[in-house]
């Protein structure tokens, strides 16, 4: 299980890196799906099967299919790919890369003081649902209102 964690982590990092340097948008989307599925495997290893299943269904399934539909609707073609190649020189990565590396360095510095092992305990659907429909029921209702607002505004924005 520990080996699976590091393997899936390496796949997630490599696939995410491939997303941000890709010029072909459909290839980037496929790499993003790979990255999300690797993260789903990590969730499973960390003892959260419910989150793993939701990650695969909602993220890799629903959200990325939405992206795919929009890319099909836009029908970008070769022109955008050439434009993308012109924009994506090594120079543009310099400043954001340095700033993100600084941020990551600070994070690593903080995390290096943490030294604890987690014994993986499986927290199944039952415990999560008991919380969702117990103390957090108001949050669930608010989330449904948020989704409704998202639905209405997406319909309104995409309308001619």
């Amino acid at each position, binding site marked *: 299980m520990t080996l699976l964690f590091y393997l899936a982590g390496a796949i997630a990092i490599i696939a995410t890196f491939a997303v941000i340097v890709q010029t072909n948008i459909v290839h980037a989307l496929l790499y993003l799906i790979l990255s999300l599925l690797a993260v789903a495997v990590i969730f499973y290893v960390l003892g959260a099967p419910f989150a793993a299943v939701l990650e695969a269904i909602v993220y890799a399934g629903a959200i990325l299919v939405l992206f795919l539909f929009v890319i099909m609707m836009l029908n970008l073609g070769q022109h955008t790919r050439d434009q993308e190649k012109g924009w994506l020189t090594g120079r543009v*990565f310099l400043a954001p890369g340095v700033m993100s590396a600084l941020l*990551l360095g600070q994070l690593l510095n903080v995390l290096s003081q*943490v030294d604890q092992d987690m*014994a993986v305990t499986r927290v199944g659907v039952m415990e*999560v649902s008991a919380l969702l429909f117990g103390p957090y029921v108001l*949050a669930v209702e608010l989330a449904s209102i948020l989704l409704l607002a998202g639905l209405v505004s997406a319909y309104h924005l*995409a309308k001619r």
Partner: protein
Amino acid sequence: METIPVEHGFILAGILFCLGLIGVLTRRNVVFVLMSLEIMLNASGLAFIVAAARWGHAEGQVMFLMILTLAAAEVAVGLGLIIQMFRRFQTVDINVLSDMKG
């Protein structure tokens, strides 16, 4: 029972977040920017799951569920905006939005 060092999980979440941040800062194609935002949201969800695994609680998974809902709503609105932008400007270059008026 095998154990995984908790900081490795957080480091993974941090690396994924920083990669998403680089994507948001470098790309000019607005669809890529939205995808990088998804990567960042996903990384924060991973951090919550790692914390939930550390203390063996279910609250982290509840929080992940909320992040998932937020990501779904955000993507729906963002893609609607992208469609509208493409109709108006015939491009996905985010720089054309810098000279909008009113």
